[in-house]
């Protein structure tokens, strides 16, 4: 089994590569010293520093609000787009919508950010709206780029779904709106949840687009973090990272537990 060993070692190296930096963030967030190189004993002072830092707390609140609103908008719009692309057959402008619904996936963030900023500035000059830049403009920008991800996820679920369910409902006299809410929506609900979570994460994570379209009062968490880490390592950011990693790890562990349970049930059912 020489081949098996080489593979295991290579894969193991890959996992170490993936996790060593994350673990070092966690370990050094409990370091008493400001220097990353010196271990000066266990301490939680950086967590205390983090929770008294008004700039970071404000930014986190701004980011959460933007994330919830834009994920919700992106899920609604993305679901509509996915429905149109998979269920509406031919219509004028179909090709255009297909292109616009997926192009944001390959668009470099610097281009999306700059072009939206220039749009907002031009709109303000000609229409008087949006007045200045702030949370509204960030929400619009995030909704636009997150929507593409939702569209892809929901459209693939809609394609996999058994259309005879919808046909049966139609045959029984349900109108299109009723069919959507009573039949389609319950089936694609997991895809909507997945899409919302992805959109929320992408919105919370975005630095580049937000930097272009945000205004003075609406610094998001990544903008504040970036301005700090640009100057080098700072331990309170390690504490912030540890909190984020812990939240994500718990969420992923719950999801994983659910997945293995579902898989086991499926195997037993067979």
């Amino acid at each position, binding site marked *: 089994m020489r081949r098996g060993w080489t593979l295991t070692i290579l894969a193991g190296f*890959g996992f170490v590569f993936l996790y060593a*930096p994350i673990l070092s963030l966690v370990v050094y967030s409990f370091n008493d010293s400001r220097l990353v190189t010196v271990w000066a004993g266990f301490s939680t002072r950086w967590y205390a520093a983090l929770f008294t830092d008004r700039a970071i707390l404000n930014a986190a609140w701004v980011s959460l609000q933007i994330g919830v609103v834009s994920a919700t908008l992106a899920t609604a719009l993305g679901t509509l787009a996915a429905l149109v692309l998979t269920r509406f*057959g031919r219509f004028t402008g179909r090709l255009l919508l297909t292109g616009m619904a997926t192009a944001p996936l390959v668009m470099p963030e610097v281009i999306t950010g700059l072009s939206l900023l*220039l749009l907002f500035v031009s709109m303000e000059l000609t229409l008087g709206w949006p007045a200045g830049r702030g949370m509204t403009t960030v929400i619009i920008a995030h909704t636009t780029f997150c929507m593409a991800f939702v569209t892809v996820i929901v459209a693939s679920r809609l394609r996999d779904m058994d259309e*005879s369910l919808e046909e049966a409902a139609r045959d029984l006299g349900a109108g299109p709106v009723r069919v959507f809410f009573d039949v389609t929506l319950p089936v694609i609900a997991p895809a909507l949840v997945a899409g919302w979570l992805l959109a929320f994460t992408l919105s919370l994570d975005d630095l580049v687009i937000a930097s272009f379209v945000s205004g003075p009062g609406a610094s998001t968490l990544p903008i504040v*973090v970036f301005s700090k880490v640009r100057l*080098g390592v700072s331990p309170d950011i390690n504490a912030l990272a540890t909190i984020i990693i812990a939240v994500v790890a718990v969420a992923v562990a719950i999801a994983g537990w659910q997945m293995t349970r579902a898989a086991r049930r499926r195997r037993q059912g067979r």
Partner: protein
Amino acid sequence: MSAAPEPPAPRPRRWLPGPRWLVIAVPMAWLLLFFLVPFFVLGRISLSEPMIARPPYSPLWEVLADGTRVWLGNLENYRLLVEDTLYRNAYFSSIRIAAVSTVAALLIGYPMAYYIARAPEPRRTILLLLIILPFWTSFLLRVYAWIGFLQREGLINQALLGLGIIDAPLRMLNTDFAVYIGIVYTYLPFMILPLYANLVKLDEAFLEAAADLGAGPVTTFFTVTLPLSLPGIVAGCMLVFIPAIGEYVIPELLGASGTLMIGRVLWNEFFSANDWTMAAAVAVVMLFVVVAPIMWLQARIDRQGGGT
């Protein structure tokens, strides 16, 4: 999979503004206004000149006293883009850095994807979740973690010095090497997931057949596994290469001040030089030189039925 095509119900009212039309109009209008129109604004502003004003660019038309309009736009920004080697170098070095990182991600990701695809069931799900987990944490913080690893007094230098492998600390942070590491690290899950999706479907019977016919493991890999996983390789490489090429954060945090990447040049034109018109011109060229070929290539791959 019923044989009947679409039921003909909505056909008669196709051109009337009804609920169907409304459902199409909402996402269409949003994307037209916030995705398509911005590119025309981008093109328009790239024809202006920087000016000390708010917003900082010159108007395209000048209305004279007698009401005639004079066209003021010009291609000065594009002339500069072609003539100044800084921009050309930035485009080439973006492509180079993205390509090198993509190959490195493939070399690291392939064995991992293969290992996960061959793992027995409970372990396979856990390993997959371990690949996805870093993706859900903050991108910025994962790049930031490497500063502590690569810097002069960082963990890698300390370990190498402690083991006596090197005498003086290596310069790793603020080099192209650090940028490669940052890109590979950030986008590795995007490489592994499509590879895994492909490799998990690989029929073991092919491998057994190859072994029965006398092929060694290495021959089997290069003649059976690798060609069959080509769609996964293409999909994974696209998912790494595309975001890498416009990257700003990674070269800014980990690269040298001279590490030119086109996303960083655009950022600096806008934020440091406050030259919105030049930033717009850089973006327009990027659309045609980088984004358009990628979209064309992806459409071709999709039509061939491979990829994603």
